[in-house]
């Protein structure tokens, strides 16, 4: 029995919770999966898309957190880079050129985040908070004209949901993108030297530095990865709602992204967690958000419930996997 219990890590608990919730919603919640007894795909597709966008952001965030960083600029980068990109397309900048500029901007933000953290030793939380405000303020005031920027008719972004692969399998493009992001993230963390470096840095930064891990370039690298993931997430958002509304920067989305990571079981103190934690976290948050919206919960109530779930997950994990007193004290948050 205790054997069995010790396998109940946070990620397993969260996965079971998500599965239960899904079944319960499918059976008891009209409009979730069945309406008047008939299967309806509409809501499920909407849910899966929301989960995927959140999940892609969380892949980037997860990698950063495993390396003992945090990226508070992810949502701002997602919204502003894509809004600027659409704005350029709308005002007639040639497609490839616009994409080049947008990507350059995204990489630049990642580089600046990374350099400030790695070389100037500013705490990540301040650097990325500042760059979040800066990116939002600068793009909104200088580069785009209104909160919502529509995608120009006929743009490749709007064609994404009509790709042959998607129409033949009826699985939304977002799911493929999330799957690909998770898979690439998994290969990177698990099988490459750089992935190992990130775990080493997260586990014991001083030890990693002293033994010759290139800690500064690696820090820069993972902020760039996070920024690029944010851009991908932004493109997908646009493909489903045909525009990018930058007010999302002032929403709860960033907290949801961090929540996905933490609830899935990626430790904020670094060095702990895998891509599968991101998947289960995204599933739970996505299913919960969708079900609560159908049940007409207000935002405030939704946040309350999420916070309770998070606390429960953490407490259960703490009870099932107690830490050694002697080793528990360092590096914990």
């Amino acid at each position, binding site marked *: 029995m205790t054997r069995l219990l010790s396998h109940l890590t946070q990620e397993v608990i969260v996965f079971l919770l998500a599965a239960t919730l899904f079944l319960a919603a499918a059976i008891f919640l009209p409009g979730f999966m069945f309406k008047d007894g008939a299967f309806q795909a509409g809501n499920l597709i909407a849910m899966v898309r929301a989960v995927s966008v959140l999940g892609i952001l969380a892949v980037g965030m997860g990698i950063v957190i495993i390396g003992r960083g945090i990226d508070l600029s992810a949502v701002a980068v997602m919204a502003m880079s894509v809004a600027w990109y659409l704005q350029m397309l709308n005002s007639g900048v040639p497609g490839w050129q616009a994409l080049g500029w947008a990507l350059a901007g995204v990489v630049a933000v990642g580089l600046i985040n990374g350099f400030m953290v790695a070389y100037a030793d500013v705490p990540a939380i301040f650097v990325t908070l500042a760059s979040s405000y800066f990116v939002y303020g600068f793009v909104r005031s200088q580069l785009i004209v209104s909160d919502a920027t529509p995608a120009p008719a006929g743009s490749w972004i709007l064609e994404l949901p009509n790709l042959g692969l998607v129409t033949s399998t009826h699985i939304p493009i977002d799911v493929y993108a999330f799957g690909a992001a998770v898979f690439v993230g998994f290969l990177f963390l698990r*099988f*490459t*030297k*750089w*992935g*190992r*470096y990130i*775990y*080493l840095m997260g*586990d*014991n930064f*001083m*030890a*990693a*530095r*002293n*033994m*010759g*891990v*290139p*800690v*500064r370039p690696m820090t820069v690298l993972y902020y760039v990865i996070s920024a690029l993931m944010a851009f991908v997430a932004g493109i997908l958002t646009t493909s489903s709602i045909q525009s990018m509304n930058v007010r999302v920067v002032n929403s709860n989305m960033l907290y949801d992204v961090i929540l996905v990571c933490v609830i899935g079981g990626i430790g904020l103190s670094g*060095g*702990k967690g895998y891509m599968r934690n991101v998947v289960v976290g995204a599933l739970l948050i996505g299913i919960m958000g969708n079900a609560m919206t159908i049940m007409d919960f207000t935002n405030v109530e939704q946040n309350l419930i999420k916070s309770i779930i998070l606390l429960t997950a953490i407490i259960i994990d703490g009870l099932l996997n107690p830490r*050694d*007193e*002697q*080793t528990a*004290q*360092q590096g914990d948050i």
Partner: protein
Amino acid sequence: MSASEQTATAAPIVEMRKISKLYRGVPAVKEVDFDLRKGEIHALLGENGAGKSTLTKVMAGVVTASGGTMTWHGKEVSFQSPFEALEAGIAMVFQETSLVPSMTVAQNLYLGSEKFLNRLRGIYISAQQFLQSLNFAVDPTAIVSTLGAAKRQMVEIARAVHHNAEVIIFDEPTASLTPEEKRHFFALMHRLKSRGVSIVFISHALEEALAHADRITILRDGELVVTDHAGAFDREKIVRAMVGRTLSGEIYNKKRGADEIRKPGSRVLSVQDISMSNVVRNNSFSIYEGQITGVFGLIGSGRTETFKVVSGIYKRDFFAGGAIELEGRPVRYTVPREAVKDGIIYVTEDRKTEGFFETMSIAENLYSGLLAANLEKKAYISLREMRALAKDWTGRLNVKAINDNARVVELSGGNQQKVVIGKGLIQQPRIVIFDEPTRGVDVGAIAEIHQLINRLADSGLAVIVISSYLPEIMNLSDRILVCRQGRIVEEFAPDEATEEKIMYAAVH
């Protein structure tokens, strides 16, 4: 009636009967009986992984026993947390640091016993007085992360003493102290004893146990071998009880003849006049291939810092910081990575904060050395290679663990040390700096590690051994450097050096 006979008759205040502790079904401690009497110093000895720390952690409520009973003042108890044990009057100083690195010394001392309103100045003053009363020269306003291993150890000791506990467990308290601090520590231990405090004292330095303990208990492979008066033991008897056989030869007492001393090879490292803030001051020395350079110094003498500068962990002063030449080529490292690439490896004295990766397995830790040094220039990792490497090195260093994928935190202290050493050597260094290489390592393993170090030097590497333990310095070194106030002040050849001369140079 002598003092030790008196304590012999006193009633035990802690009595442990048939205590067992299983980790994943494997016993770390097997049905051990242990008792502690009022006002005695009870030494607990055994090889690495014998179960000393585990047994005492059960006593201090850090881990709960899988079987057996414990009585405290005659009443049966089972502490569920260290806090409960502390409330009852049992304090423990852990083998690895448990201080909060971002707080000051004084804040750490008062951690957990803060008043509702804490006046910083107030706690600094009382911390200062308290540390002085123990004869510990530590600045109460210093941030813990800036302190070296020895000072941290002193803060840990002070913190335990500060609780006014009836029982204090010291798990290898002297491992990183220099002779001077050790003297203060033992004086403190005897003062506590005369106040009626009972002490459990774990150490790998057998002569410390013989000199200071009233009784000695020896564990082997988690089982009790013997408990008896200290007077009933001598060094040889202890070793035999610990390892279950007679170890060939003494480790330390052999004096090396002039012909055994290695001649210096070519000069690989020349350090001229380096300075780093006010810890390292105008320090100059050279290091030669194919021999072991021993470095001795008291705490605060800057020996660790000097070699951290050499290995790129600290940066020397930008202006008037001196010069370092590696084989005639001037170098100025900004990160350790550059030094590692040049083959300079620093094996830390503080394995927990900057040595190993605690959530990872032994194999992953060892393999990380190879990856970080980037010796193979591969982009992907190979699990097969990792396993082979781990097998090779755990065999070579004789690392003992409950099973192969044990995480490093689950190893005993001495075995963790071996992993850290292995991780460094895997990087194929040309110059290797060992800072307290045998900290927390048992007698048998010390001999193995010394052999390893000797072999490294024989194979032509430049080896530097920093140690607070004079016999270790005397025994290993082909050349002895003494550090004081941030610089190397004297150099001895091992055949002319004596412990007195070295101590004199280190102090005056």
